């Protein structure tokens, strides 16, 4: 019996079937098509703008992905995001804290809110759908009560400066952060003990528990991370618009949070994540959104298109899986 590393043939087969390839191909194709129709699509300004909005979508997707890993879901991603947004605004505006400190504290809030979700779910055994549905409203409600839905527009100039800073003419810092985050998450789930335990807990909680893994801890960590990432996404919006607005996040983030990961191959049932896939999925969505904008196809129709597209993508994955199984 041999335990030699996999033959190249098998590796190639796995690569070919991975959703990542299809996504990358679609991204490339659309990019070419849109640029052909409207050369301004590939302009450094448009790339920069896309990169900024992509960063937010990617991180929102990651925020959901880390919870999907343990077999749950987080409907309060948007609510936590907006809480962190307003918290940072208030810290900078009313307490006069310097942006780095305000951001750090806002992230801590995100982690705390996420942690609360995790503890509630782990300790009471309540379904994560219902629990986060409830906390989404608890958090949003609390935020609205405290801020009275008043946006905070006067933020220190450094904030918008980060947002408008361009590296190499078309790369925005948030995008770099998002990519680094992706690399970190890849390492986390592939190699770190906590990440691997989270995936085990998501795939089969009973088996994981009996093998000495603390499933509760995995769930709490996943929600804590989710809250932290939701907060990070919120802060990325703050630097982009240069203000703290209570309209950010909320239910708007629900679809994007699932779209990227699901398109990319993360399992809804838990136990398996695809970091690169989530990134590519978000990229595809951003390209489509930007393309429609640049081509002047009404922004209103974007929603329709996104919905149809998600359906088509999920169906395609499903039928590919079935076709492949039939051939074997």
């Amino acid at each position: 019996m041999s335990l030699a590393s996999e033959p190249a043939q098998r590796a190639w087969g796995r690569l070919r079937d991975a959703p990542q390839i299809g996504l990358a191909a679609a991204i490339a194709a659309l990019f070419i098509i849109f640029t052909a129709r409207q050369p301004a699509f590939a302009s450094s300004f448009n790339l920069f703008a896309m990169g900024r909005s992509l960063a937010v979508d990617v991180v929102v997707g990651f925020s959901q992905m880390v919870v999907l890993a343990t077999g749950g879901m987080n409907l309060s991603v948007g609510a936590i995001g907006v809480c962190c947004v307003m918290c940072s605004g208030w810290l900078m505006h009313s307490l006069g804290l310097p942006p780095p400190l305000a951001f750090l504290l806002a992230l801590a809030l995100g982690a705390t809110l996420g942690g609360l979700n995790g503890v509630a779910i782990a300790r009471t055994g309540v379904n994560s759908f219902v629990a986060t549905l409830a906390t989404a409203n608890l958090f949003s409600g609390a935020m609205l009560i405290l801020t009275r839905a008043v946006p905070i527009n006067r933020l220190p100039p450094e904030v918008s400066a980060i947002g408008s800073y361009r590296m190499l003419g078309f790369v925005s810092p948030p995008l770099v952060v998002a990519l680094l985050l992706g690399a970190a998450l890849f390492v986390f789930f592939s190699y770190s003990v906590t990440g691997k335990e989270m995936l085990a807990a998501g795939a089969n909680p009973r088996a994981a528990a009996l093998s000495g893994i603390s499933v509760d801890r995995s769930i709490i960590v996943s929600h804590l991370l989710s809250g932290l990432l939701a907060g990070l996404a919120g802060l990325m919006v703050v630097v982009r618009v240069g203000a703290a607005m209570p309209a950010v996040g909320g239910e708007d983030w629900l679809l994007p949070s699932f779209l990227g990961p699901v398109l990319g191959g993360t399992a809804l049932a838990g136990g398996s994540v695809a970091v690169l896939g989530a990134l590519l999925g978000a990229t595809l969505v951003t390209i489509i959104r930007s393309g429609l904008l640049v081509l002047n196809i009404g922004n209103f129709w974007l929603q329709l298109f996104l919905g149809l597209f998600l359906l088509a993508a999920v169906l395609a994955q499903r039928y590919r899986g079935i076709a492949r199984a039939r051939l074997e």
Partner: protein
Amino acid sequence: MARHSRRENLTMRLGVRNVTKAFANIRALDGVSMEFAPGEIHALMGENGAGKSTLVKIITGVQRPDAGELSLDGRPAAFASPRDALAAGIGAVHQERNLIPLFSVGENIMLERLPTKSGVIDYAAIDRRAREALDLLDLGIDTRTQVARLSVAQMQLVEIAKALSLNARVLLLDEPTASITDHEAAALFAVLNRLKGEGVAIVFVSHKLDEVMAISDRVTVLRDGRLAASGEPISQVTRSRLVSLMIGREERRAEIARGRAPGETVLELAGVATSYGHANVNLVLRRFEILGLYGLVGAGRTELAKAVIGLGEITGGRLLVNGRPTVIHNPHEALTRRRIGYVSEDRKGEGLILSHPVGTNVAMTIWRRIASVLRLVSPSAERRAVKPFVDRLAIKATSLSQLVAALSGGNQQKVSIAKWLAAETHILIVDEPTVGIDIKTKVELHELIGGLSRQGVAVLLISSDMAEMIALADRIVVMHDFGVVGEIENDRRYETMSKAIMEKIHGADAPQPIGHDGLASP
């Protein structure tokens, strides 16, 4: 009696003729033939991978044969779906319950033919007709009881009643005694005998030799997709012949020499009561010793193990690990602080993560140990840590990345155990290690367990397989009804030990007749 007249002339003979079924070039069934005659309990036996479940799927209409055919009373029959098989008169009671939990017994029985009166459901008619169905088995359950409130055994009986009320003339039961108590099994067998008397053809799928010997009239044995025996009268078959039919050679008992003298006490339960319902459990586990925990299904052995590792609570008495009173809150503590491991009896549900690779499954218990300073586990470190155990257990997998779901049952069980070998626990509780495992692997695992004990791991072996217990254990603690009823030194002689064990169990309970002659011994 009206009941009797309904059954007359409504018997049916189910024939299987030269059936072949292949999945991706592997022949699960290769030209098998057999007949299930009315008025007989016909056992279907075979090791894991022998083709039993494929045959069951074909008979119940879930799959269609590639070649060969089924016949009913001599006429060819083809089922395109489970509904077709049902319509043709083949009723099945599967391993998982097929009832709607929040519906009443009556509604469940009448589900496909809910009676209506002027378009609206007629609940009175449901109760009436369900009552008739239950009366076929003399079942006293109220038809308005919610199914979720019934015991597993009662649910099974409801399913049988339902099948009969749908005019099932062939009744197939798949491992029916897997999750019911001995008491309930006896009641089930009484029902089956009655049905047999009324002309129903009963197909009894089981891996429990004792039961098959006790209640069936004929036995068919499958081995590697082919027939090893077809419809042999049970009176002409001995237990050892049955085993040799299943494995193709004489049963090789593992050579477990009693190696070293028992060492210090590593685990002790003193007057322990648990949240599962145990009361006053006393047992002592020593190093270099295999302590057997024998009992019939429902005795509470698995629950006791789970209480020890912290899944349940110990509500009374004391648990001592290495002489010190301890409280274990969860399996994580059990493993990391007390070095106690538990090989689950439910390998697919609790022992393994089927969707993950072999490497992950084996290394799960030791990630923390093999991680580097940054708490990262490199693939090569994992491979290095896992390979020795994979080799030692001779696990057949294409690579460490192969998903466990793709392995055979025996290899899956090996992975489940390898994980605990890797964890290097001091105490290992092994729960039903060889259920549904082919005999060759069974022997390998027995030798492994013996070897573990000789190396100093204190083994607590839970098993319902008398022969396995007697072959491996140094001492046997007998459990019944969530309590300990006796403890016996093992003299390794099957006849004396099995009698002694049974006496302990039956001392606590009035003897129950099973089948025609009480519990059979070979």
